[in-house]
């Protein structure tokens, strides 16, 4: 039940580089969301309540294109379903016993990056350490979003319209390095792109098209290359 200050500080140190990295990405998110028409206030709330890159970008994109709520829900679920696996890996490393309410609190801060650092820890994970680990990433993510959102409002509209591509360019920056390193990822990405282009010509909403293509491509990849995945 006691709070371990040493563990918390160790977590803070581990989380510092993540927090700094998040500032730049969330500036981009703030710019993208506000230039798409979401208010500054709502944009910051998205970051403070979601704390996730791809899921927020997709969700904000769907809000901007006025997609129905159930599509937003399904898209968010599909994109963030990987967290199930990550939380699961973190669970294996927790210092037990840990009461449920503590897991409910630190669990909010599990991201691709905090997860990676957490599972790389040599020691068992305490509640205090996990809270330290997620503190600076949370602050960085929020701060960057505020900066990006406020910057955008100061830009002329003609420039704002050219910023929408930033989101897609970032997606490309996430995809391409993984494609270079793995033939399997390259395969599933190509399948997703081709099916997405084809579905563009059918009368399917963009939210559903994304889900269908993503699940189809990943499913096909998993069927054809069911390799042992490192967690």
């Amino acid at each position, binding site marked *: 039940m006691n709070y371990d200050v040493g563990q918390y500080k160790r977590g803070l140190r581990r989380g510092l580089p993540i927090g700094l990295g998040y500032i730049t990405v969330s500036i981009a998110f703030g710019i993208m969301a506000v230039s798409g028409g979401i208010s500054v206030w709502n944009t910051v709330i*998205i970051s403070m309540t979601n704390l996730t890159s791809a899921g927020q970008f997709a969700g904000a994109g769907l809000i901007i294109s006025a997609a129905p709520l159930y599509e937003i829900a399904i898209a968010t679920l599909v994109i963030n379903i990987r967290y199930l696996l990550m939380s699961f890996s973190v669970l294996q490393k927790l210092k037990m016993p840990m009461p449920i309410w503590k897991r409910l609190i630190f*669990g909010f801060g599990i991201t691709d990056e905090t997860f990676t650092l957490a599972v790389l820890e040599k020691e068992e994970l305490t509640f205090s350490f996990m809270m330290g680990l997620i503190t600076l990433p949370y602050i960085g993510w929020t701060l960057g979003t505020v900066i990006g959102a406020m910057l955008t409002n100061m830009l002329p509209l003609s420039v704002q319209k050219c910023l929408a591509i930033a989101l897609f360019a970032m997606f490309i920056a996430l995809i391409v390095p993984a494609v270079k390193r793995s033939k399997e990822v390259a395969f599933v990405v190509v399948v997703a792109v081709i099916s997405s282009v084809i579905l563009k010509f059918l009368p399917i909403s963009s939210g559903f098209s994304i889900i269908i293509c993503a699940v189809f491509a990943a499913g096909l990849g998993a069927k054809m290359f069911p390799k042992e995945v490192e967690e």
Partner: protein
Amino acid sequence: MSKVAFAIAIMAVVTYLTRVLPLILFKEKIKSNFIKSFLHYIPYTVLAAMTFPQILFSTPSIYSGVAGLIIALLLAFFEMGLVTVATGAVITVLLVQYII
């Protein structure tokens, strides 16, 4: 509650649940290779399906969209990082829009 606020609440709840459900429910490790591989691939396929072909229509004209895409692919290929790739694409789009 406005529709946007509702959408944000839904996003937040769904995201939160994917994070904490395993922490409070699961007991055994996932054994299926299929599911593990699927979960490994899904972030990339989602991003790919979101980007293509929409990136081409995300700018004021398709010419700047194509130019931005090419520059983004090049910068990403040389692993310049998220912010550099995004900035490079935006500058390209601004330049092309200015020229045409």
